[in-house]
């Protein structure tokens, strides 16, 4: 039985020009979804169906995009969670953080809490799905990968380490169907009280010297940051020297 895979997409923002574009992580989620389900992939957006960016996603080879029609200030969560429940999805793919709006990255977690499904964060790849369990690779810092298995159905947020999205074709994107349904009408009541402004540059942290005496201040201003040098091994045998290095590597856990 093929699995029902749903990718959630949002409107991205180009980091330099600020123009709307297909969001990087979301398009990777679509790419991963295409790998798992082919064109049976259901791609869902909660928002405005007239949004031109949706055509960029559709240009990745999608016959249709499902849009839960709602206004910009409405909360996307109720609409999405009732849609996912109705569709009996097996795997839901999202980005880690949206590129517009609050970009808190809470959406997949809230969905997981509401639906009672597990969530795996920062997925690099879904290797295989077998016996109601999926084998998932998580992206860790420093290029490391962790393998986990998770029961279906689950929600996965896709990391930048996942396979990059294919190019979007303009014509097929224009021809794709927008299947609209009505979304939620609840406004996000908390957000109304926030004030938003373009981001200010963060001040760089200065190195503050808390010296009590003039001599200490002088030392802090002139001393080289270099501490005393470490252990030097000169006259030992090559074997002992290598052992010392090896012990350090084991202690730092870079050799397992």
């Amino acid at each position, binding site marked *: 039985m093929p699995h029902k895979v749903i990718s959630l997409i949002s409107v991205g923002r180009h980091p330099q020009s600020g123009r709307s574009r297909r969001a990087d992580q979301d398009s990777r989620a679509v790419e991963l979804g295409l790998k798992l389900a082919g064109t049976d992939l259901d791609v869902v957006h909660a928002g405005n169906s007239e949004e031109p960016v949706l055509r960029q996603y559709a240009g990745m080879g999608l016959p249709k995009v499902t849009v839960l029609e709602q206004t910009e200030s409405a909360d996307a969560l109720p609409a999405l969670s009732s849609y996912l429940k109705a569709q009996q999805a097996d795997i839901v793919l999202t980005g880690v953080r949206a590129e517009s709006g609050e970009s808190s990255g*809470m959406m997949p977690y809230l969905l997981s809490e509401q639906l009672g499904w*597990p969530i795996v964060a920062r997925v690099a790849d879904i290797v295989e799905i077998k016996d109601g369990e999926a084998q998932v690779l998580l992206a860790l810092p420093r*290029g490391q990968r962790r393998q986990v298995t998770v029961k279906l159905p*689950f929600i996965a947020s896709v990391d930048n380490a996942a396979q990059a999205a294919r190019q979007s074709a303009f014509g097929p994107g224009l021809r794709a169907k927008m299947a609209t349904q009505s979304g939620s009408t609840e406004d996000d009541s908390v957000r109304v009280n926030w004030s938003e402004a373009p*981001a200010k540059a963060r001040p760089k942290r200065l190195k503050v010297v808390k010296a009590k005496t003039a001599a200490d201040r002088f030392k802090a201003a002139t001393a080289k940051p270099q501490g005393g040098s470490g252990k030097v091994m000169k006259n030992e045998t090559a074997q002992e020297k290598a*052992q010392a290095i090896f012990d*350090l590597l084991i202690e730092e856990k870079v*050799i397992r």
Partner: protein
Amino acid sequence: MSDIIRRDPRAEWIMRNRLHPLHDQYMSQEEGGEVRGPSGLIRKFPHKVGFIGPNGIKRIDRLKGNSSAPKGKRSAAAQEVQLPLHKVENPDYYIMVVPDMVGGRLTGHDKDILGLAHKLIAEQGGNGAVVAVCFGEVKEEHFDTAGVDRVLHIEGEVFEGYAPEARVQALAKVEAQYTVKHWLFPDSIHGGCDLASRLAARLGERPATQAWQVNAEQTVSRGASASLDITRKTPKILMLLEECADAIDETRHEATPMTLDEVSVSAATIKDKGLMAVDPNAIPMAEAEFILSAGNGIHNWDQFHEAAKVLGATEGASRVAVDDGFMPRSRQVGATGTWVTARVYVAVGISGAIQHMQGIGQVDKVVAINTDAGCDMVKRAALSVIGDSEEILAELMKLAAEHKQTSLSDQAEENSNAA
């Protein structure tokens, strides 16, 4: 012993008073003292003035006995300063900080957040305590100077490794058991952000993410891929960016352990299968954790590549090795190459030119293998080995192969025991 130079008024007085019975004795201690000629004039013997300093240069002491502190009283080692202890008894509320503890130690990011927690307590008033909630292995020894009033170490096999579901259940239990005013998490890829989001969803709180300016009333956080500043009331759960506040450095804290009642953890739906072996050379060099770097002191290149493979290290190179065509340009470390952030950097036959040193500024531990004990790399290194690179790499490879053998046979034994 203190570093302060003390005057000895008695010695000064004796030296001024030529009639004092001890005058001669004190003057002879002082080199270049007064000598009166037959006519009563003060004579100076220029060759006797001064003394030879430790670096072989002649020094003249013009303090004239004002520094007559007994020699050797000035100890070289600066005294360890005992910071004042900040005590919190019977706190009314707690601020929970869940640090990343990468490698079992507090990161700089964690320490900034502990500093912020104390700032919040100072602004809100009341008797609050900062708690560090840790899971898994803890190697940190300096909780007290990092500003931790209480340590809540949640131990148990279910919380080891990758276990976000079990951990969030434990955190929810903490919330139920203690009066928690705020939950502070680092907004990091080391798991802080994941855990915070899970907890926020579980408790039904709306968190502030990527927060960078926080006080008791207001929080400024980034939104829309860091192009927007959102100002709002400070929520209960905060995920904080780096440098959100200054770390604690003027006080010592109790760091007394706290306990948590038994947590009943439901069966995990996510099962950890361990870390994958990744090709170390496929990791971008700027991110690699362990780099074996080659310089002009490598003569056997096949052996070097072999060593990197056996040790599982990412390869790096100095500019000379690249210019000579032994390594690709993309592997160059330094000012005109890549700036690396490795935890361990093994420099084999690299002298440590400043252009190279710039590239390894953020490295934690440098190991140098070099024939020249006086080179700059040896000064920077935590461990330096003086010797021929080829010989030492050969020994290292032998050790690594042995280690692999024993760990494999250990595993086989475990498997056969389990079966």
